């Protein structure tokens, strides 16, 4: 059975890009936050853990209250708390950031599983909302965040359905990307963040509070990873599955490198990776790689490695990119 040729039209392209944007937004939000953390010199490998905790809390809160906004806020808050642990360990205690980040990830994965375990979950849900019926507490899914069509824009062929018939978090991600780019490169505080990541001693001597900036950037990273988790659950796949992040937090980390620590390039990269994810099954349906679909499932991971290799090569050649003080603890000379 060879690959059959299927007419792939404009409608298909719109739908494919729409899936691309959705899959990409999970990565985009998490990578935006990590970009800020790394720009300030803090590497946080806890993204995966913060994301899954965000997803778990958005599940618990929507189930208990049905309030999406509250769910998003709590998800962001909880992920920020995890980021705070990382900040204390790596900024105040000046310990190894790689190890601390991994610990955060393992802790987040365990905690999210613990809190959403049916027996435990029922107790938590009842505590939040005592009038919640028992049958609701056993639900594994909640309604998905509704799509909003933007008038006029959503009528443009291909682009319309891809970018302007999406849910509120995706629209927020467009605004956030531009805003965070502008803030980082066009404002004074943005410059401060970058200088702290490049040369903290110099920044310190100029009167910039290195610790404060690193704390804020790391916590922002946590909040956005929490938002990414909340989006993953209520905006993308509203079924709770233990470990549903499935390595996306680490793909987001690779994305930050790919994007050379620039929010706009993060967006481009996120949609590239999102496209790879959306393509997996579309290729299979079109008849490609059907004899061993496992190789298609490897695509996102293989792409990540290839991109990392290509980028490293590029970076060595052009000598661009890495914040010079990344993952190096800063101790003030007394």
């Amino acid at each position: 059975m060879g690959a059959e040729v299927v007419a792939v039209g404009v409608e298909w392209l719109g739908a494919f890009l729409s899936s691309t944007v959705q899959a990409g937004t999970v990565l985009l939000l998490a990578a935006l936050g990590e970009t800020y953390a790394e720009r300030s010199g803090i590497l946080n490998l806890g993204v995966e853990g913060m994301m899954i905790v965000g997803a778990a809390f958005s599940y618990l809160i929507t189930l208990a209250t049905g309030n999406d906004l509250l769910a998003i806020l709590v998800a962001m808050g909880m992920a920020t708390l995890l980021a705070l642990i990382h900040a204390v360990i790596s900024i105040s205690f000046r310990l190894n950031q790689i190890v601390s980040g991994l610990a955060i990830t393992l802790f987040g994965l365990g905690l999210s599983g613990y809190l959403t375990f049916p027996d435990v979950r029922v107790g938590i849900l009842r505590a939040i909302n005592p009038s919640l019926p028992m049958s609701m507490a056993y639900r594994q899914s909640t309604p998905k965040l509704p799509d909003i069509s933007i008038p006029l824009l959503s009528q443009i062929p291909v682009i319309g359905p891809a970018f302007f018939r999406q849910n509120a978090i995706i629209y927020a991600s467009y605004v956030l990307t531009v805003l965070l780019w502008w803030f980082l490169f066009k404002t004074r505080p943005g410059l401060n963040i970058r200088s702290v990541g490049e040369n903290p001693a110099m920044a310190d001597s100029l009167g910039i509070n290195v610790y404060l900036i690193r704390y804020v950037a790391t916590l922002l990273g946590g909040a956005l990873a929490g938002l990414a988790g909340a989006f993953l659950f209520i905006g993308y796949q509203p079924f709770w599955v233990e470990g549903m992040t499935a390595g996306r937090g680490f793909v987001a980390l690779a994305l930050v490198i790919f994007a050379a620590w620039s929010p706009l390039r993060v967006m481009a990269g996120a949609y590239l990776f999102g496209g790879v994810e959306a393509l997996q099954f579309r290729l299979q349906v079109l008849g490609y790689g059907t004899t061993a679909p496992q190789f298609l499932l490897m695509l996102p991971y293989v792409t990540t490695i290839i991109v990392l290799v290509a980028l490293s090569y590029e970076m060595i050649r052009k000598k661009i990119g890495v914040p010079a003080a990344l993952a190096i603890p800063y101790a003030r000379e007394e």
Partner: protein
Amino acid sequence: MASTSKDAERKLLTRREFLGISGTAAAGIAVATAVAGGVIGYFAGQTSAPAAGPAKTFTKTITAAGPTKTITAARGLKAGYIYVGPVGDYGWTHAHDEGRKWADSHVPGWKSTYVESVPEAEASGAIESLISQGAELVITTSFGYMDATADAAAKHPDKYFVHISGYKSGAAGNATQNMSAAFAEFYQLYYLCGLAAGAVTKTGIMGYVAAYPTPEVIRHINAFALGANYSYRKRTGKDIKAYVVWLFSWFNPGKTRQAAMSLVEERNADVLAFTEDSPTTLEVAEEYTTKKGRKVWSFSHYSDMRKYGPHAHLTGQIVNWGPIYRDFYRMVETDSWETVDIWGRIGDFVPYRWRKPEDKSTCCKPEGVVYPAPVNSVVPSEWTTLIKQRYEDMKELIFEPFSLEGNLGEPIRDQDGKVRIDGKIVPRADHDMLWSMNWFVDYVKSPIPK
């Protein structure tokens, strides 16, 4: 009479128990618990079983292997279940948990515990834990637990083991006598779903979101394609085309969504069947139907999922594991264990096994271990009637989907054009063919991963 001597043995042993100082209190509490459990069970299940059951003190003689050992079971017997997923509100594990509750309520005196989300590689640890918790009967509910269950059965000859969806049992001769196998079979129901699909499809294209290429999933896909082609060809004279996407995961709503959408958008499928553990496919169909102005149908899987896609729900396949578990409970407690390999199909575990006329058909109502979900009223009545007729025929195994009759009188060919069921040498699929099916019927246009 044998029963008299057994009664005497029971009394003797019970008295001995009661004479022990420490035993008295324990047994008293146990009997009280058993009575309470029985009463609750009685009201909950409204079973016709005699209410006197729970208060009895059971004696069990085990002759599986080694020295004969006698246990009194006044404390109530304990069953331990191992689940592969979390207990939720739908899906494979949910269905088993419902079956557990059903069995507990129908056989007073039994208590059950379960361990959920056990990775398949971790089964042996979970089995040991349940046994150390005092489980007499261990039921493992995922194919991947088979080896671990068989090993544990060999290691614990005084306990009983049931494995779901595998092929090892004492009955089959590849495990010890204290291990049984059981399965609730869906392929007949998938055929009925196919009939409904072929009756409503406009494009003649079926999409199938499939977990893994195992014989079970392959025969479900084939049965579905045969059924869909039957009604579609009768309606239009043309053959259907079925496309399959493999997820390589039993439960993955994210991937399922992507896969279901690709089938609709790239292949123009307007009916989506699936073997995956969530209602995602049905939800995707509902989204197309209600929000995107494109009529797409889908099904229930394991439990009634109509609430997830009220406008897209056609029919579906539903399971009740309860009667299977109840029978194992009874075998253990009445000391009549026999190793078996149960394959629950339409007509098994139903009160009335004989086919009824279509107008009196019990089709699509809960009965037995497997039955179809209610059929959507959009399906024209001639096809609902056929579905009922085939359902009733299958109770007596008069009709078999994998036969010439199931394929409009034609031989069943695989994708290479080879005749697999010719109606003469191979009149219909038998157990072995179904259990090791590794070919697709020619209506399926996607290959099987090799």
